């Protein structure tokens, strides 16, 4: 039954994808834009549609009109407007048959294509495992779910909810349609579209076998299969939008068509709207368009389209807080609502530590992000290929606008990362471009009769494939049984979702009881009671400086309608004293307790500990 459900969710996602493609094809027709490559046309169609859907969903939730009904009307209208553009599906199928014939002529290409298909099928079912990712349970899914349930409003107790961007609207779309499995399926679809766009980019410079090799390398990269299957983060959509924006920009330059610049800008804006650092993409793209075309019209068209595609989260944040990139400028723009403790914690999570600043650290970063990735935003999850083949970049050079735009955008995003956050995970949007660039350098040099270089490249790729396959197997063993319905949802969540055992206990103990529960753990997606995140490291609402006195703390709890305080292990350091004092005075009274088994540190490392959970009731205010 669970297996059939998974197939059903995937079918819904496929249907949404089909409607998006046919509608986008209609938009391309109306703009008078066409390409000889059917795959590229399908990708542009999907990119334009999904970027537009994101804008529409953000508008619908802001207006309070987001529901399954309005979404069904939206997709029905898209399907109708598509009209004769439905024929793009037939053209795509014919192109697929032609591609298979081409692949069959090469044994290497056949093997690579079969591996890619097998991997994608496995990814699809892995993505159907219940949501269990850490950041996903903290805010990627939680904030959209809370908006859907309680209306569109600022969630100050989940500070990262302000980082919810345009691509999160696809998560919201799935939730509004009735299931987080649809949201997870859409994230998987973002991965498939990213891989297809990477393949298309690679085909501009590389052979069929080389292009399939780099596509397989992409799919076997731990960062990629993690992001497109079980992470529950929509960031993989940035890879798709960014890579496609580059292809569109190159078309705009070579055809001197401002309309392609519009498409390119809109896609770059969709990427930028997903995460603050990704705004480097449309900015650099506009500058490169200006340099390449010497036309302010081109650059302005691209810039305006980028704003249309991605500015909405910034406007929302400015409307709610006064700071479009909340909380990073709130010290200046919204000083009355500034929480120095939480701000310091968020800065520490998104910036290099003090001992990694200075000139030498800037030089070291490109090496350390791969070779010491755990300290630099999980950069080791990208694999070693880009760094290993980096010296071959000089052989990747092509005297074409596409190469210059690709290299320019990649370099700009990379260097803004070096000089700002030094968090490798923010490099995800340009990873596909980086991979194609170094692989095309490797293929060029391999054809020049340099056996040592060819052997070094081939061996490195083969070792990485073996490593990627082993890492994938390690991951799949935990998630695939749940995705296939072999393992029950509840058993899977108890086993693999962080904080799930605490959440289950709280849900059953507080079911139907009035008042909110203050919790100090971050994975709150499955909580079914009104809650408030009380951890000052993640909650902008909790400023420890203002809650030092027990009376202030008690007043704060009552003002926030907190009736229950959930103690898991111990309280956060900054709040320990006032909360313990309230316990001693009887203002916090224990009502229930349990012991949960939970992860310690990163889930992937698999270490578990016992965590005592205690529910304390806040003494009601006397008459």
């Amino acid at each position: 039954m669970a297996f059939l459900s998974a197939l059903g969710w995937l079918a819904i996602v496929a249907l949404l994808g089909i409607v998006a493609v046919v509608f986008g094809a209609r938009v391309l027709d109306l703009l008078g834009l066409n390409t000889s490559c059917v795959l590229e046309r399908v990708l542009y169609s999907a990119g334009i549609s999904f970027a537009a859907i994101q804008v529409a969903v953000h508008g619908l939730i802001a207006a309070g009109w987001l529901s399954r009904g309005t979404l069904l009307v939206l997709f029905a209208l898209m399907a109708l407007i598509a009209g004769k553009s439905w024929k793009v599906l037939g053209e795509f199928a014919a192109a697929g048959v032609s591609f298979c014939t081409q692949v069959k002529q090469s044994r290497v290409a056949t093997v690579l294509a079969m591996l890619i298909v097998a991997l994608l099928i496995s990814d699809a079912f892995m993505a159907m495992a219940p949501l269990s990712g850490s950041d996903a349970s903290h805010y990627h899914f939680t904030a959209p779910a809370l908006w859907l349930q309680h209306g569109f409003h600022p969630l100050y107790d989940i500070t990262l909810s302000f980082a919810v961007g345009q691509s999160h609207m696809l998560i919201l779309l799935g939730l509004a349609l009735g299931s987080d499995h649809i949201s997870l399926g859409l994230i998987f679809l973002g991965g498939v579209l990213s891989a297809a766009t990477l393949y298309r980019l690679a085909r501009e410079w590389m052979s069929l076998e080389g292009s399939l090799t780099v596509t397989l390398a992409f799919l076997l990269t731990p960062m990629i299969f993690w992001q497109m299957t079980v992470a529950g983060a929509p960031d993989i959509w940035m890879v798709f939008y960014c890579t496609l924006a580059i292809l569109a920009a190159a078309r705009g330059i070579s055809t001197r068509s401002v309309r392609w610049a519009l498409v390119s800008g809109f896609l770059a804006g969709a990427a930028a709207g997903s995460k603050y650092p990704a705004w480097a993409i449309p900015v650099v793209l506009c500058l490169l368009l200006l340099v390449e075309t010497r036309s302010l019209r081109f650059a302005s068209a691209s810039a305006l389209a980028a704003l249309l595609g991605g500015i909405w989260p910034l406007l929302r944040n400015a409307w709610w807080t006064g700071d479009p990139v909340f909380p990073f400028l709130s010290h200046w723009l919204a000083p009355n609502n500034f929480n120095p403790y939480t701000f310091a914690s968020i800065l520490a999570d998104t910036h290099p530590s003090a001992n990694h600043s200075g000139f030498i650290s800037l030089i070291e970063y490109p090496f350390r992000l791969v070779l010491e990735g755990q300290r630099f935003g999980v950069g080791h999850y990208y694999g070693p290929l880009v760094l290993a083949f980096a010296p071959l970049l000089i052989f990747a050079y092509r005297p074409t606008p596409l190469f210059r735009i690709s290299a320019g955008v990649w370099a700009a995003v990379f260097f803004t990362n070096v000089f700002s956050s030094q968090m490798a995970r923010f490099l995800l949007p340009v990873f596909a471009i980086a991979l194609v660039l170094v692989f095309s350098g490797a293929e060029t040099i391999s054809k020049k009769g340099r056996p040592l270089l060819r052997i070094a490249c081939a061996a490195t790729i083969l070792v990485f494939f073996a490593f990627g396959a082993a890492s994938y197997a390690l991951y799949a063993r935990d998630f695939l049984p749940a995705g296939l319905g072999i393992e029950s949802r509840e058993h899977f969540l108890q086993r693999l979702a962080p904080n799930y055992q605490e959440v289950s206990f709280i849900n059953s103990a507080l079911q139907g009881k009035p008042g909110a529960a203050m919790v100090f753990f971050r994975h709150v997606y499955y909580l079914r009671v009104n809650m408030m995140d009380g951890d000052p490291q993640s909650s902008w609402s909790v400023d420890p400086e203002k809650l030092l006195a027990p009376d202030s703390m008690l007043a704060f709890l009552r003002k926030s309608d907190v009736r229950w305080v959930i103690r898991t292990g111990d309280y956060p350091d900054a709040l320990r004293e006032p909360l313990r004092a309230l316990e001693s005075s009887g203002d916090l009274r224990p009502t229930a307790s349990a012991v949960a088994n939970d992860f310690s540190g990163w889930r992937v490392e698999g270490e578990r500990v016992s965590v005592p959970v205690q529910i304390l009731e806040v003494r009601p205010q006397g008459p």
Partner: protein
Amino acid sequence: MMKNARMRPVDGLFLLWVIAVNVLYYHQFWTQFAPRIRAFFHLWHS
């Protein structure tokens, strides 16, 4: 192709570079995940 094959000193440098990157990269993974990898392959049970 082999008739035209050429080897240059820089090729040897590249080979050393690739070996160094690979060794350092996989070593860090082994350091982080050794217990899980061992458990996965059931090679060593403590």
